[in-house]
């Protein structure tokens, strides 16, 4: 009797099936440059008036997803204040989308790292899901036609110049 004969292929396929169950199911691809920016609407952190990204059609928009627990966001906020100061006159709109669960957490962060730009609170996390974020923070440069032109995942000090240049070029191009 040869108990193992004829069973090996089945065993291999079963083991393969077992291995497949361990592979995490990754969701769809993230929003990439060249795509139309997904619809995103959430209330202002202070005031509750809903803001939609579509309201900014015709303007260059810098959308930044942040959270109070996100460490690199502490560095990106002063940078975005600089962008606001230097480029808002040229038509740049900065929209920071908080993915915090409560307004309380977001406000506590803003007490320490104040923002001089639009901050909206998406507690239901519909916007980050629509943009299919890859990491925190993530920022998107959206042109006047509502097309995503650049995606930045994370925030490193070297990103400052790159982001600023992209925005300056886009504002100058008038697209």
């Amino acid at each position, binding site marked *: 009797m040869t108990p193992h004969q004829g*069973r090996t292929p*089945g*065993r291999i*396929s*079963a*083991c393969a*099936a*077992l291995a497949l*169950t*361990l592979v*995490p*199911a*990754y*969701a769809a691809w993230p929003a990439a440059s060249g795509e139309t920016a997904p619809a995103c609407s959430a209330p202002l952190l202070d005031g509750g008036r809903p803001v939609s990204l579509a309201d900014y059609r015709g303007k260059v928009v810098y959308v930044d*997803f942040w*959270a*109070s*627990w*996100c*460490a690199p966001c502490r560095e990106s906020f002063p940078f975005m204040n600089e962008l606001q100061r230097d480029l808002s006159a040229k038509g740049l709109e900065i929209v920071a989308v908080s*993915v*915090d*669960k409560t307004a309380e957490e977001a406000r506590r962060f803003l007490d320490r790292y104040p923002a001089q730009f639009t901050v909206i609170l998406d507690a239901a*996390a519909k916007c*980050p*899901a629509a943009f299919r*974020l*890859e*990491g*925190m923070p*993530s920022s998107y440069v959206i042109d006047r036609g509502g097309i995503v032109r650049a995606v930045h995942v994370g925030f490193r000090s070297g990103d400052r110049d790159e982001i600023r240049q992209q925005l300056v070029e886009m504002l100058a191009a008038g697209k």
Partner: protein
Amino acid sequence: MFSRVLIVAALLVAALSGCTTVPPWERGTLAKPVMSVDPPPQEKTQKLRTYGAKEGGAAATGVGGGGCGCN
């Protein structure tokens, strides 16, 4: 027969598996200091010190000394 058992096992593992992908925007709880794999360096030093004392030897968490057998 055996492969069928394995397939059922695979399905069971898949059903019971605790593995999931947490989207980046929902990692707030994971970002808390208490969730870090290693405690802060200072706390870690203190813990190792206590652990070393409890184990009663300088080599409780590794090999100490230069190989002469004298710690």
